[in-house]
């Protein structure tokens, strides 16, 4: 994506975030005014700094968007076009092998972080994750790359050795408790 389109999209996301933070901070100031704190003065309220940050985020996002649209005669139509372009670029990304590899990799890491760690003994979960990830990368990798050349036996062995080393280092040497 073009740098200016990226800036426009980034600005829109930040504008939404800044608005939310500012609104939440106003509610916070209201809550702090009630018992038990009863802080009615804005300048000492716990919501003051987040409010300032939220407003700054809104201001900077507007400046970022304005900077990315600078030099265009019809900034509003360019702005709308850029948002449309970014949506179509996102759709097109699903047809890109690199993007899909990264997406699947991220999903696998998500599953490991949110569902495997803490629910399955660390050693077993780690070996399973490493094998799954390396097998996936073996097939996702470009022809000729050494990851692709690695056979299943090497992958399983690498996963077993790596997981065992991590467990040994942290649990035996550093006396920590792994999840």
């Amino acid at each position, binding site marked *: 994506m073009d*740098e200016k389109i*990226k*800036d426009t999209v*980034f600005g829109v996301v*930040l504008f939404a975030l800044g608005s939310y*933070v500012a609104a*939440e901070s106003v509610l*916070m100031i209201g*809550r*702090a005014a009630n018992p038990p704190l009863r*802080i009615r*003065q*804005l300048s*000492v309220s*716990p*919501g*003051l*700094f*987040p409010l300032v*940050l*939220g407003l*700054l*985020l809104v201001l*900077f*996002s507007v*400046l*970022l968007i304005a*900077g990315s649209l600078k030099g265009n005669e019809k900034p509003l139509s360019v702005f709308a076009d850029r948002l449309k372009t970014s949506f179509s670029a996102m759709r097109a990304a699903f047809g890109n092998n*690199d993007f899909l*590899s*990264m997406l699947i*990799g*991220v999903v696998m*890491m998500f599953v*490991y*972080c*949110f569902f495997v*760690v803490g629910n399955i003994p660390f050693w077993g979960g780690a070996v399973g*994750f*490493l094998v799954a*990830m*390396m097998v996936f*990368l073996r097939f*996702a*990798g*470009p022809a000729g*790359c*050494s*990851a692709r050349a*690695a056979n299943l036996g090497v992958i399983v062995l*690498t996963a077993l050795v*790596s*997981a065992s080393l*991590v467990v040994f280092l*942290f649990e035996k040497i*550093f*006396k*920590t408790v*792994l*999840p």
Partner: protein
Amino acid sequence: MTFQYLLDACLNVLSPANFLMLAAAVLAGLIMGMLPGLSATMAIALLTGLTYNVGDHQTAIIALLGVYVGAISGGCQSAILLNIPGTPASAATALDGFPMARQGNGGLAIFIATTASCLGTILSVIFVLTLTPLLTSFALKFASWEFFFLSIFGILICGTLTARGNALKGWISGICGLLTAQIGLDTVDTFARFSYGNVNMMSGIQLIPVMIGLFGFPEIVKAFKSGSEAKVLQLTSFNILKGFRIVRDNIVGVVRSAFIGVGVGIIPGVGEDVGGWLSYWAMKASGRNTDGFGKGDPRGIVAAETGNNACVGGAIIPVLSLAVPGSAPAAVLMAAFFMHNYRPGPLLMTESPEFLYNVAVYLVFASVLMWLIALGMARVTVRVLTVNKKLLMPVVFLLCVVGAYLINYNLFDVKVMFFFGLIGLAMSYMNVPAAPFILGVVLGSMADSNLRRALRLSDGSFLPLFERPISVAFLIVCVLMILSQTGLLAWLRGKVKRER
């Protein structure tokens, strides 16, 4: 007393366990620094989790400083042999290092780079020892307003210098970091902010998982992309005598680069890469026959490596004296200092004066060991460069998970690491620097609590701010920086000229 502290620190580091730990940490740092994608920040962040349970705090500090020095220096080997800097700090080294390696002088280039790195760190230690007490005594004059403006100044300058052309993006990154630090119970009234009734959120967001996520996760995910594997050039003979001659002939450049590196390191949040580039530029600007720069001139390597390693000491100076990190790796180091019961800041020289001398001595030993290990084991360690990242990165992710978990033994931190990893990935795609974000997380609580404390003392009035010269100076610098970076200063000047 100073001599006693230095002697104690030497005895500490020379005890067999600590010395072994230092050697292992330096080697680990060198390897992590060599591998493109594994930065010094990530190395220290991972090791912080690892050293959490080490009984002796001194051993942990020795290991952390060792890995810092090793990682910053290790990046030069991949920059020279692969033309891919292992860490951003070595980017300037690749300019002349890789051409030298292509000319068959890879060994000589690595020798020069490693020697310059060692000298850079050692020279920076002199500044650590002299400037830290001065800055600490100056910082004792700081009250709430000054600390508030110091945090804001840090974010602004870090955002300006790391955003590469668009300071706005750097500032936005810093604001997002400051906002992240607001999550949880506030330090003044224990009021829950952005916590949504979640107990984990109420205890706040830990720095280390955020840091591992922002710096490590994007590099892991990027390695999943297809790409041709880079060819590692052969490591030739070091040519030690010639190497020493080159360093000796450029000793003025070494000292100048050390000054630049320390100066850059002291600026909050601005890292070793800027130190390397500025030193390289200064060497080129001040030298004769500069046509060879970029084509394999050893002076470029000397400047870049001295400059980036001098930043190590420079970045530690504000950590020790102001509790404000000079670079992203120094931010993790600061968090680790707190974890190991040291309280860097203006009171450091009063509460634990020996700590400054410990850090200085450990840095010197780490840099000398780095020189020995990097050169002695070069033929073994360069093999690491041939390891395929697609096989390595899943293992690195496993270490990220463990590193995030061990900070509090809390699975919530693993989820935090993943969440901020996604944010880091998006920021990397949008070309938004991550360093101001980290600085924001570090300084967020300090900025908020000091602002409100100052306002509470003045009953909500901003007037006392203008009665304090240091805070007024900070305010003027901050306003000027915003005006100049947004183009408003030039616009105002033009308007004044037109009116005249």
